[in-house]
C-alpha cells in the first residue's frame, strides 16, 4: 500500500481520497506529534486566556459581594445575558454529540477525523454552560436546593417544573458526554503511552487503564460504545428540548410555542457545527493534520451548517407566521416589537447572521471549500446564534402583557459585569480546550484508522476497503 509519512508536503487540496492513502503508521506519527511539549506560542496563548478568565472571575466575585444589581436587569427583563449565554453554550455542546453519536449510528465515515475535537468541545461547553445558572441565581451558595435530597425540612423540589428537569437533563448530559469522551480516548491514550517516554509515559499509562487492544477488549468495547451512542442520540435531542421548555412552558408571548423543541435543537447543531469549524480550521493548520482533516471534511461540516441553518430559517418564518395567524394581539405585538422595537438591532443581527449570510453563500460549492471564508462564516454564525437566544429571552420578556412595562424607559442594557462574565466564559472554555489539544490525542487514532483500508497482503480488486 502507498505510504505517506510526515515530512512530505501534503497535496494541495486534501480530500477523502488523499486521506485514504495514509498508512496506519502515518496516522500515528501525524497525530501524536501534536502532543509533544508545548512551545512558546502555546504558553503565550494560555497566559492571555487565563488573564481574560481572571477578569470574568473578578466580575463574578464583585457580583457575589454586591448582589445581582450589578447585572443590569431591568424589570420585566429579569432573565438576560446569563441565561442567553447558558443556552448558547448548551447549544454549542450539541453538535459534538451529533457528530460523535448520531453520525456514528448513521455510519457517516467522515465524522472520524473531527469527532474527538467535537466531543471535547461538547464536554467543555457543558462545563461552561453549567456555570451560568449558578451565576444567574441570586444565592449560588444554596444552588444545591435544586437537587432532590432528603432534607431536615422535608422539602422536595417540584418535579413538574421545567427548571428541575433542566437540572437533570444538563447534569445527565454532562456525565454521559464525559463518559463517551473518556471511553473513546482509552485506546488512543494507550497509543500515546506506547509512543512516549518519561513522565508522560507513566501518566498516559495510568490514564489508559491497561488497554492492550486485545480481541476481548475490542469485542466488549465496540458493543459498549454502540450502546453509549444509542443512549447519547436521544439524549442530545432531549437536552435542548428540555432547555427550550424552560421557555415554552411559560405563557410569555414569544416563548409559549410548541415549535420550540425542534427549533432549539436545529439551532444548537447549527451553532455547534460552526464552532467545530472555528476550532478545527486553525488547529489542523497549526498541528499539520491537513491530510487527516481534509477540505472534504470541512465541506461536510459546512453542509451540516447549511442544512440545520435552513431549518432555523424555516423556524423563524414559522414563528412569525404563527404570530400573525394566531390573531393573538400579544403574540403579534411581540413579533412587531422584535423587528421594529427597542431591541430591533438584536433581531436584525440574528436574521443577518443566521439567515441572510449563510443562505446566500453556503449553497455554493466553491465557497463551502474556501477555508478562510468558512472560518469567517463560522464566527458570523455564532454571533448570530448568541443573538438568537438574546432575542428569544430579552425581547420576549421586554414586551409581554403589561403595556406599562413596554418601551425605552425600562430598556435592558448589558452591564460591564455581564460582559466581563460573558467574555470570561470563552476564556474558561478556551483554557480547557488548550490543555486538551496539547495533552491528549485530539484526533482519534483508532477511528481514523478504522475508515482507512486495512493493510492487506493480497490486494483484492476492490482495494481492500469495504
Amino acid at each position, binding site marked *: 500500500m502507498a505510504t505517506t509519512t510526515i515530512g512530505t508536503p501534503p497535496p494541495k487540496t486534501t480530500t477523502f481520497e488523499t486521506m485514504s492513502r495514509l498508512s496506519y503508521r502515518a496516522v500515528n506519527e501525524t497525530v501524536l506529534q501534536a502532543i509533544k511539549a508545548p512551545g512558546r506560542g502555546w504558553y503565550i496563548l494560555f497566559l492571555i486566556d487565563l488573564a481574560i478568565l481572571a477578569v470574568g472571575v473578578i466580575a463574578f466575585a464583585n457580583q457575589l459581594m454586591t448582589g445581582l444589581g450589578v447585572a443590569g436587569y431591568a424589570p420585566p427583563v429579569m432573565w438576560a445575558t446569563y441565561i442567553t449565554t447558558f443556552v448558547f453554550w448548551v447549544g454549542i455542546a450539541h453538535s459534538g454529540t451529533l457528530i460523535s453519536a448520531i453520525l456514528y449510528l448513521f455510519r457517516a465515515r467522515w465524522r472520524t477525523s473531527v469527532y474527538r475535537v467535537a466531543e471535547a468541545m461538547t464536554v467543555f461547553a457543558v462545563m461552561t454552560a453549567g456555570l451560568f445558572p449558578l451565576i444567574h441565581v441570586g444565592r449560588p451558595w444554596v444552588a444545591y436546593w435544586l437537587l432532590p435530597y432528603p432534607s431536615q425540612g422535608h422539602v422536595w423540589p417540584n418535579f413538574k417544573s421545567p427548571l428541575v428537569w433542566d437540572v437533570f437533563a444538563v447534569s445527565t448530559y454532562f456525565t454521559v458526554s464525559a463518559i463517551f469522551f473518556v471511553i473513546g480516548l482509552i485506546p488512543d491514550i494507550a497509543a500515546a503511552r506506547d509512543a512516549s517516554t518519561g513522565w508522560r509515559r507513566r501518566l498516559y499509562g495510568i490514564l489508559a487503564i*491497561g*488497554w492492550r487492544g486485545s480481541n476481548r477488549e475490542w469485542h466488549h468495547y465496540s458493543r459498549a460504545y454502540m450502546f453509549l451512542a444509542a443512549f447519547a442520540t436521544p439524549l442530545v435531542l432531549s437536552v435542548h428540548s428540555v432547555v427550550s421548555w424552560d421557555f415554552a412552558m411559560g405563557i410569555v408571548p414569544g416563548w409559549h410555542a410548541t415549535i420550540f423543541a425542534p427549533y432549539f435543537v436545529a439551532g444548537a447543531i447549527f451553532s455547534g457545527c460552526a464552532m467545530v469549524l472555528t476550532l478545527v480550521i486553525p488547529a489542523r493548520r497549526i498541528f499539520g493534520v491537513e491530510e487527516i482533516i481534509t477540505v472534504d471534511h470541512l465541506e461536510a461540516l459546512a453542509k451540516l451548517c447549511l442544512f440545520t441553518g435552513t431549518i432555523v430559517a424555516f423556524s423563524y418564518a414559522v414563528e412569525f407566521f404563527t404570530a400573525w395567524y394566531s390573531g393573538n394581539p400579544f403574540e403579534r405585538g411581540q413579533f412587531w416589537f422584535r423587528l421594529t422595537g427597542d431591541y430591533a438591532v438584536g433581531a436584525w443581527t440574528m436574521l443577518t447572521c443566521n439567515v441572510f449570510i449563510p443562505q446566500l453563500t453556503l449553497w455554493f460549492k466553491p465557497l463551502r471549500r474556501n477555508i478562510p471564508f468558512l472560518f469567517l462564516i463560522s464566527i458570523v454564525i455564532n454571533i448570530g446564534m448568541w443573538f438568537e437566544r438574546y432575542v428569544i429571552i430579552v425581547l420576549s420578556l421586554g414586551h409581554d402583557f403589561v403595556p406599562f412595562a413596554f418601551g425605552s424607559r425600562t430598556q435592558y442594557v448589558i452591564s460591564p459585569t455581564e460582559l466581563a462574565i460573558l467574555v470570561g466564559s470563552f476564556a474558561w472554555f478556551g483554557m480547557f480546550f488548550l490543555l486538551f489539544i496539547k495533552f491528549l490525542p485530539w484526533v482519534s487514532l483508532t477511528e481514523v484508522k478504522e475508515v482507512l483500508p486495512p493493510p492487506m497482503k493480497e490486494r483484492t480488486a476492490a482495494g481492500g476497503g469495504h
Partner: protein
Amino acid sequence: MAQQGVLGIFPYLDATTTAIRQLRKAGFTDLTVYSPVPRHELEEALEPRESPVRLYTIAGGVLGALTGYGLASYASIAYPLVVGGKPLVHMIPYTVLAFEVAVLFGSLATVLGLFITARLPRLAFETTYDPAFSNDRLGVFVRCSPDRAAAAREILEKAGAPEVRHA
C-alpha cells in the same frame, strides 16, 4: 502471571485472519489477538459469543427509569404541592425526568459492564504485549503447552508472520 505460548506479529490483516482460522482448525483455542483497531474480519475469524455488555445496559436503563418515576412520585407525595388542582403524581412530566435518569443509569451501567467483561482496568501487563500493537501491527498470541509450541509456530510463520516469539 507467567504465560506459556507463542506470539506472532503480523503487518497484514488478511494474514492474521488466515493464521487465526488455521490455528483454530488445528485445535488451538486459547488465542489472544491484538490489533490497533477493531476489525470485523478478526471478529469473523474468532467467532466470539455475543458480548454480555447489553445486559448491563438494559438493567441500568430499566433501573434508571424506575428510579426517575419513583423519586418524583415519592417526592410529590412526601411534600405535596398542589398546583391548579392538578393531580399530585402525574406521569407525563415525570417521563422527562425518568428518561434522563434512565440514560444516566444506563450509561453508567454500560461502563461498569465494559470494565467487568473486558477486565479493565488492568494493572499488570503480559510480557506478550508489544507497543507496535497500538500503531500498525497485529499480534496473535497462542497459549499452549511447550510440546505444542512448535506446531503453533509453524502455522504462524506459514500464514505470514515475519516475527514469532516464544513467551
